[in-house]
């Protein structure tokens, strides 16, 4: 660990965990690191899955597949298990780590194909080919004039909805930050995607539990049934008092530039009975500020109906007392 952190951090270094993003982007020459530092030696120390009845601690190097199948995760955090098992393919889930997963890069075709010169995320200041291009899969929330790329992952929505935090370690020591402040919206500098400092690595996710964690789920809508990124998704966790929402946690995927917490929708639900009507009002609130592009206007409506369906499904979940 100390050796890894001692490595002089700069942009020419890439950390490698499962490699399913890093190697892919290296082959595409989207990233051209001079050095690749294999973090997998840390798997022994940070590969854990630990539930103590109060919170869930997930080592950054635990594999997606391990976490998705873990009995404690399945029992107490359905939204986490589902967000992982509905992602990618079995092969990828066997390789990929949780830390790498939350840091995966966008699937924007113009980002991934270096023959396009205009991509602010890949080459700062070069422009954005997607604005006038094929942008069906792009974001409607959190976009800027500089980048409209969708954050593609699933697991991050579960962490965000559940108010998880992230432990990181770096050359200047360790710290903890709320998961909500890990990712940055593109703004004017879309190439800066996280608030990690140079050389910092993620070691662990800590997910608190609450009355809402058991009544939680991840709904993923996509163009085919499996092995495909979300067109729209919703991670929801709800605490009900009878029909009435005591507390709801919502994060949206497939529609936003970063894992997207829908606080307005949560507020619209609080204290109200979880009916279709109320769910629709909440969903409208979540997308009130949406900015559609030429090919993705449908995501505004689809994102809302995805959230409505997820909320109604959560409301109807049944538990053994």
């Amino acid at each position, binding site marked *: 660990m100390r050796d890894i952190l001692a490595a002089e951090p700069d942009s020419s270094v890439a950390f490698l965990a499962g490699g399913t993003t890093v190697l892919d982007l290296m082959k595409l*020459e989207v990233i051209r690191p001079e050095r690749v530092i294999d973090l997998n030696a840390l798997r022994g120390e940070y590969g854990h899955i630990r539930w103590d009845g109060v919170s869930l601690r997930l080592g950054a190097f635990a594999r997606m597949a391990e976490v998705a199948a873990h009995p404690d995760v399945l029992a107490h955090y359905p939204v986490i298990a589902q967000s992982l098992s509905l992602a990618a393919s079995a092969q990828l889930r066997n390789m990929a780590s949780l830390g790498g997963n939350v840091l995966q890069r966008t*699937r924007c*075709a*113009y980002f991934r*194909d270096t*023959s396009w010169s205009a991509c602010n995320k890949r080459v700062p200041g070069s422009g954005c080919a997607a604005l*006038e*291009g*094929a942008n069906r899969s792009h974001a409607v929330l959190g976009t800027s004039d500089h980048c409209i790329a969708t954050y593609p992952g699933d697991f991050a929505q579960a962490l965000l909805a559940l108010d998880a935090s992230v432990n990181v370690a770096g050359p200047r020591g360790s710290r903890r930050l709320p998961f909500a402040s890990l990712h940055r919206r593109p703004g004017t500098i879309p190439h800066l995607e996280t608030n990690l400092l140079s050389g910092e690595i993620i070691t662990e996710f800590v997910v608190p539990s609450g009355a809402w964690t058991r009544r939680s789920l991840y*709904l993923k*809508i*996509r*163009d*085919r*049934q*499996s*092995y*495909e990124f979300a*067109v*729209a998704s919703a991670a929801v966790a709800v605490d009900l008092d009878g029909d009435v929402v005591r507390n709801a946690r919502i994060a949206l995927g497939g529609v936003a530039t970063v894992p997207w917490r829908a606080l307005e929708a949560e507020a619209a639900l609080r204290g109200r009975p979880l009916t279709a009507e109320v769910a629709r009002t909440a969903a409208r609130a979540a997308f009130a500020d949406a900015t559609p592009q030429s090919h993705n206007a*449908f995501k505004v*409506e*689809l994102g809302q*109906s*995805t959230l*409505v*369906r997820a909320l109604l499904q959560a409301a109807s979940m049944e538990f053994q007392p």
Partner: protein
Amino acid sequence: MSETLFPQSSTLGQPVPRYEGRAKVTGEARYASDVRLARTAHAYLHMSAIARGTIEAFDLAAARAVPGVIDILTHETIGDQIRQTPAIYQGGYISDSRRPLGSAEIANWGQPIAVVVAETFEAAREAAHRIDVTYKLHPSLAAGMNSPSATTQTLEPMTIGVGDFDAAYAAAPVKVEAHYSTPAQHQNPMEQFATQCVWESDRLTVHEPSQYVNNVKFGLAEQLGIGAERIRVISTYVGGAFGAKGFLTQRTALVAIAARRIGRPVKLVATREQGFTVSGYRAETRHHVQLGADSEGRLSALRHEGWELTSRGDAVAMGAVSMTARLYACPNISARVNTVATDRSTPGFMRAPGEMPYAFALETALDELAHTLDMDPIELRRVNDTRTEPVGGLPYTSRSLMRCFDEAAAAFDWKRRTSQPGSMRDGDWLVGWGCATAFYPTYAGNSAARVRLSANGRVHVSSAGHELGQGMYTMMAQVAAEELGVPVERVTVSLGDTDLPPAIVAGGSSSTASVAPAIMAACDAIRRRLGVDGASPAEIMPAMEASGIGVIEEFAETRPHGVPPDSMKGLYRGKTFPVGGVHLPDRVQFALGAQFVEVRIHALTHEIRVPRAVGAFAAGRIINPRTVHGQFVGGMIWGISSALHEHTEIDDRNASYINANLADYLLPVNADIIDVKAIMVPEEDRLVNRAGVKGVGEIGVVGVAAAISNAVFHATGRRLRDLPIRLEHVM
């Protein structure tokens, strides 16, 4: 032979396991790129990044500096080592008329403009990425069919006029008129476009996955200006082709030249993305259909006009109005085909090349007509069923369309369908049932085969046909075993090699219809040698034993019905193509089928699923129900894919393919394919060919997209006329 032409047999019609199955699952099967040649150098293509223009300059310094680079081929370095030759559509061999590395002109995005040859694949790749090209851009028609200045050309020979369409349509009490479209799609065979070339003195051997080894041999000879006898092309196994490996592409001559320049074998495996422009593909189509009918649903007027995207260099069109005009009884028909030339690579053949898009248009229009008439769509087909095609009045050799509909409908339980759109909702899911006709013309062509019978009962059969995964080895073994009365396990097979007796291109679902008769004819010759002409298979081995002969080897060539006598020399020059279908003077030949699907669409989130598909197909005699089942079911799955998933997305700014990889080019995964059932409707057709077989390779795809769009209408009341159908279209 007994009274029925196709008696029950222990071999033919049996689900004999795949001949090469073991070799494939154990990895023993050597595909073209698996063949190891000593001192192989590796080639990597560099493709153009613009839609149209010229190369002003190459900067190759950085590429040359990569350790291990041996040679770089560009139009400047190879000069005129490759000749300009006519394209396949002009009577030549090659898929498009552009000369490989012929000039500085760029005609499309993804055109090979340089080839790096290096000691390793990695070095070649790295160097290819370091080539710096200065382009001069020319105004382009990058928006494809939407380009306002693209030239549209009507292909007059494809025009059909019967009766008086305009008057009949004007007078028809019931009318339907609509426009349809299908997108660009790519075959994406699992095995990529590989080529290995090795020269031994002045003889060239090419290892390449091909649907027509003799096309590659003779075409390459023409391009290189050498005698064809100096070239051998080997294609023992092909990992899927679907039309993409039908004809010679630009890459082969480039690899051959590279190998000659460096005096070593050279191997190229194009990347998945490069594969999108290395060969042809299914280009975009548009359709205008008008149907006029009486109140009973009888068609009185039918018009089908198609537009197909092509390249500026080659006017390629699949033009399947020749089929859609001949499917149903109708006295007044007008049909036309147009090409729209744009700056894209030349399209080509993709499984059911014309049949898939044209069937989508016509069979969706028929469903619209059925709905307008408030008539069951099966009954609409029934009242328009015919024994003779309406254009030339020629008889079908056999036609079991309604039997297919009836069997598929029964298996699907169609009688439970309520006709009102939206009426079959199941909770949160909108449910729709739809059906459509499938059709594919029955083709065959000249082919030759050699059969060797040994006294120990072993048989070897050889013909330069092709194993694309469809079951060619197995079929050849079965036919020889049947004819000679030996167990199929005693038969060995050679194919996919220009040193063998030549056969037809593995296209147009014609391989079995062409090669099986040639094998039968060679077996006849063995009978004659044994003096037991006309004997039953069971009498052959005893006759062989009695004769005391050790080995008999016989060669035969066959020319199917309707193929002109002077065409036989084409067989020996790589120019044998499927003949038949609607192109015969005295009859038409079709395999027919019926496709049924159920779609489910979520009422809130609109995902479209296909939980069930049933197809029934009448395709003459089925030689191997196991491999044929694979063809039908595989075709139907591809049909689902063609309707809901596949779409090559094009950026209008440089006509580039932005999803040219298997992560972003959507194909159904296992979870999308739930219950797909193929029914083989027994059909005996004594006319089509001696083997009684109609093609089965492509028909499974045809009609599925229409059945799906019809089912989507039934589920939602929304008529979707443009493929692919995605969730945003049913919102």
